[in-house]
């Protein structure tokens, strides 16, 4: 398997044998203007796998995600998604390959009603799956059902978060990318989200997750990657990462 940055050669993220890789990114660099934000990061995600992405504020987690998704155009490196070269792919092409995105800050459409936010996103999965129906999303987040006709801008912060996740599910992704998806959610709902993540993992959907609750992330993910100033400083099976004595220093705890 490929190795990530030199310092972690011995702990390269090795996905479980036999499962096909749906994300295979190697030596990813990214820039915002003249500032070099990502310095050669490797990331692999296999089908159905949950991968956690950790690091302090401003270390490049979101940038890595946005680079994989094609939103950061100043990038370098080799990105393969579902076996296809996506190094230069545009965001909508990435999405159509089966990647859904729940961005930090939620990205709810403020001028669309809750129903419209959901309905507009609906799409069949790669294999024709349509198990995440409108109804099922509303069952998962009952609060949304009460707010169906409200505009996105009229929702509480947590409601927006639910809507954003629900909307991602409506696209029937193979990989769902959650950037701080539990931000602003009540503990009960957070538990529910983690349960849903577990569910979708069970149904073979892979997850790339960023969350401030690093313990939960490490506990619920298969593998994890820790970023520090745009470099991968720790990578490997989550249990190993969790046990690593240097982890607290990278997370500032």
């Amino acid at each position, binding site marked *: 398997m490929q190795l990530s940055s030199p310092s972690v050669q011995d702990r390269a993220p090795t996905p479980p044998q036999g499962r096909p890789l749906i994300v295979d990114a190697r030596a990813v660099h990214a*820039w*915002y*203007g*003249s500032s070099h934000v990502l310095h050669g990061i490797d990331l692999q995600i296999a089908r159905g796998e949950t991968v956690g992405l950790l690091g302090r504020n401003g270390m490049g987690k979101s940038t890595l995600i946005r680079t994989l998704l094609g939103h*950061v*155009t*100043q990038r370098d490196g080799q990105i393969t998604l579902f076996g296809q070269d996506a190094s230069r792919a545009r965001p909508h092409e990435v999405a159509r390959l089966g990647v859904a995105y729940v961005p930090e*800050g939620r990205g709810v459409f*403020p001028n669309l009603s809750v129903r419209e936010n959901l309905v507009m996103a609906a799409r069949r999965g790669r294999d024709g799956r349509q198990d995440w129906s409108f109804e099922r999303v509303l069952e998962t987040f009952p609060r949304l059902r009460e707010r169906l006709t409200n505009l996105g801008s009229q929702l509480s912060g947590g409601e927006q978060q639910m809507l954003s996740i629900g909307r991602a599910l409506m696209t029937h992704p193979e990989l769902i990318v959650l950037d701080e998806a539990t931000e602003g959610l009540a503990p009960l709902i957070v538990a529910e989200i983690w349960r849903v993540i577990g569910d979708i993992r069970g149904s073979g959907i892979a997850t790339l997750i960023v969350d401030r609750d690093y313990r939960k992330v490490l506990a619920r993910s298969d593998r994890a990657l820790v970023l520090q100033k745009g470099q991968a400083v720790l990578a490997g099976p989550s249990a190993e990462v969790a046990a690593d004595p240097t982890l607290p220093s990278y997370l500032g705890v």
Partner: protein
Amino acid sequence: MNRRSSPLFVALVFAALALFPLVAGNYGIDFVTKVMIYAVLALSLELLVGSTGLVCFGQAAFFGIGAYATVLLSPQSGAPSLLWLLPACMLAAGAYALFVGALSLRTKGVYFIMVTLAFAQMAYYVVHDTPLGGGTDGIYLYSKPAIGAWLDLDKPLTLYAFTLACLLAVFGFLALLLRSRFGRALAGIRVNEQRMRATGFSTYPYKLAAFVISGALAGLAGFLFAVKDGYVNPEMMSWHLSGAVLIMIILGGLGHLRGALIGAFAFALLQEFFKSEAIFGGFAKHWHLGLGLTIIASVALLPRGLVGVPGQVRERLVGKGMSSRRADASEVRNEHA
């Protein structure tokens, strides 16, 4: 992004304007006087659009009111004194701005644009459809204002110097204003009014003050225009002029005082250039085409307007692409999405 105007450039411009009469003929002086008046008008609008984020589409009304006041307040015989006439005209324009601003600042964004247009159109129809200001044919100014014998605006050179002084004064005043606390508060209002209110700025009076100042300065431009032409006409208040001034400041580059200056000159010179029979011969009558294409090209190639040109050249030389700017802009925009 701090918006420091480059003082050297501005100083050079004003120096060039001061020396210009030495080399120019009658027409040149006339022409530059006109452009300087438009520059004053553009500066007045820049205060609203570029600095406060209030896109006013009725600036011509304040301009026109200043001009009409000049003519209507002037006595039939004998030169009126500049000392009271000028303030009176600015006051008249400012008073209408107070009225318009007090009402239209209740609205935002495009709605604000349209309400200011509506009030400007009302002023337009008052002079257009009533005998007050001579109707559609306009009215004449009989004698031009003066202060005693030493400042007689009837003399083109005196008018030139006076206009230049006004332009300099307005520019200097606005430059000071924008770096003051008042100016920073306006900038804050442009970027995020909600936060301004939450931190304790009563934004309405701030915006209203900016609106009135802007209106009065537009009135000053109107005064100068009426004095220069000695003739006013309802078309001075039409939305075409409001639009043209807006075009000037966008072309020059929003958010910079010198952008208004550059824009006014660029717009006027471009028109003259494409209208010139000496260069284009018979095709000069199709000057709209050349002007239009130039404007389109400038939007495509100069994302920051004319003021951004030096920066772009520098970036080119250093070999830094424009993509960084784009990433920045989209990021900043999404913040409000």
